[in-house]
């Protein structure tokens, strides 16, 4: 009881001294340097700070930005508060593409700080602006006790709607590009001649020529014989002359001259042999069968008859007879 009676006086005095020596304005007290949060602390100082999201529109189209404002009230140091970087907060960065908006610089006398952001939802499953934890320094708190209380901006539900339909832009390519070949023909590889096709083409020409030639000989034997005849230049010239004799003024004389010229070229016919009989004899001397020689003589006689006697034989038959004897002689020669 004695102590209880006498000790309170010095204790009261000590308290008084302490109170007087301490700053009167608690707002000017120095912050404690211990227990500063490592996260969600943005240098805000105040008593009973309130943080909240302001979201004017809670519906946003996919691909569009949502404007949100972080409002911090009852701040004592508005110029010192650091704007939270939402890109570093997974809850925000996973859900939004965050773009900082420029904020007007706060005045030292402001009691409220506003930080504006543009948040673009990454997909349509995003349904809220997440809550934001906000630690601040409470200068009025006793040292070591709740110097950094936590405020919290509550989450705000939002709705992400379908993006607006984009205006259709027509394709400007040329019309012809919009047409393609269709049907199974598209897959048909065109014929490309192989080596054997070239070999076949090379063989076809000679083969066809040979076949044609032999067929012609079979179908036109006379023509073939005549062709054989034409291999002799003398015979060819004689037959050409005989064939053209009809266009001359005196065909029998032309035929006789052609045959005689041929005989003189092909056989050693003496110059004196001019009559049919003399020619026949000379031919027999040249080993021409007597029968053929006589036929030749007959041709000459027919020519003489046609020239000097009244017309009894056509030039055509004489010409054919002449060609026939030349043909026989060619076969013999």
């Amino acid at each position, binding site marked *: 009881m004695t102590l209880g009676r006498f000790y309170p006086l010095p204790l009261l005095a000590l308290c008084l001294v302490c109170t007087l020596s301490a700053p009167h304005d608690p707002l000017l007290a120095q912050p404690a340097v211990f227990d500063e949060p490592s996260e969600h602390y943005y240098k805000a100082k105040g008593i009973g700070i309130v943080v909240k999201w302001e979201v004017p529109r809670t519906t946003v189209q996919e691909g569009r930005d949502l404007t949100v404002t972080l409002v911090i009230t009852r701040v004592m140091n508005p110029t010192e508060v650091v704007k939270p970087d939402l890109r570093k907060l997974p809850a925000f960065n996973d859900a939004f593409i965050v773009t900082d908006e420029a904020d007007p610089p706060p005045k030292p006398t402001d009691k409220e700080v506003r930080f504006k952001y543009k948040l673009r939802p990454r997909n349509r499953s995003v349904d809220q602006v997440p809550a934001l934890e906000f630690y601040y320094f409470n200068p009025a708190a006793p040292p070591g006790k709740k110097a950094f209380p936590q405020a919290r901006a509550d989450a705000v539900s939002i709705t992400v709607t379908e993006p607006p339909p984009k205006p259709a832009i027509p*394709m400007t390519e040329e019309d012809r590009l*919009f047409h393609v070949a269709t049907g199974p023909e*598209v*897959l048909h*590889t065109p014929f490309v*001649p192989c080596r054997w096709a070239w070999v076949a083409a090379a063989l076809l*020409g000679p083969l066809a020529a040979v076949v044609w030639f032999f067929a012609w000989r079979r179908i036109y034997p006379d023509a*073939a014989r005549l062709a054989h005849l034409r291999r002799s230049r003398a015979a060819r010239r004689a037959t050409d002359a005989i064939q053209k004799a009809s266009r001359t003024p005196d065909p029998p004389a032309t035929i006789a001259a052609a045959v005689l010229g041929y005989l003189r070229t092909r056989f050693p016919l003496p110059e004196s042999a001019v009559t049919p009989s003399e020619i026949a004899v000379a031919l027999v001397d040249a080993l021409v069968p007597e029968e053929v020689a006589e036929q030749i003589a007959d041709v000459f006689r027919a020519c003489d008859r046609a020239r000097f006697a009244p017309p009894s034989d056509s030039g055509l038959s004489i010409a054919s007879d002449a060609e026939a004897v030349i043909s026989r002689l060619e076969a013999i020669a």
Partner: protein
Amino acid sequence: MTTGEAVSVCTPSGYRIIATLIVLLSASSAPASSPADTLAQAESAFAEGVALRHDSARARPTFTRAANAYDTLWNEGFRSPELAINRARAHRLAGNLPKCIAALHDGLAFARFSRPLQVELEDARAAVLYPLDGELATQARPKPLRGISTRMSPTDAWLLAGSLWLLACAGVARFAMTRNPLWLAGAAMCLVVGLILGGLWLQDAQQRIHDESLPLLVVSDDVILRRGNAAAYPPRIDAILPKGAEVRELTRRGGWVQVQIPGGAIGWLPESAVISCGG
């Protein structure tokens, strides 16, 4: 099967093996898409794209589907000028000009004579954004195809040469029949024409061997032609080589390919920036 084997099969690992076998068998027995089906898919996708042409954002993916189906057919070995043109048009309408040009070169490597393919290639080349002036303007533009093989197909040449040879032989045969030298002259003329044709083909083949000895590449993206095989090397030509430009491959090294542009300049491009094609 013995009891032991039956037991081993009925264990969990045995079930896994059976399940795997079933999956493998079902996968192997699944009918592969036939060429006709693939063609039908391609045509359907192309028609869908044409129907959506008023909206390029929706039409281009369908043209891409059509192009992929046509690519599948081409890679399966189907070759025709029509298929090459279809491929090229689908790629072009899908917005992929380099692949369009590559598809046209693939087609021309097979059917160099095809006039529609040549026209399509020239049109596609005209869409490549070559610079209008400067060194690249003169160096990068590809030269048009020339030679008798661009005008006459091997089939046409075969028919023409065969006909000339047949006429020549027939002329000789007719000369043997009539001894008329005019027939021999005609046969000789046919032979001369045939020989001229053969000479032109030979010259064309030699020119192609010379021109196409190096693989053809199409630039798939706007890219800088560099002096060395690294991005640190300075540009060989100041201007950017536009996508769709055609270059010839010289060599490859370290993910880069050394190329020669049509004007003769040599430089390096990343391998990822080029696509190979025929021709």
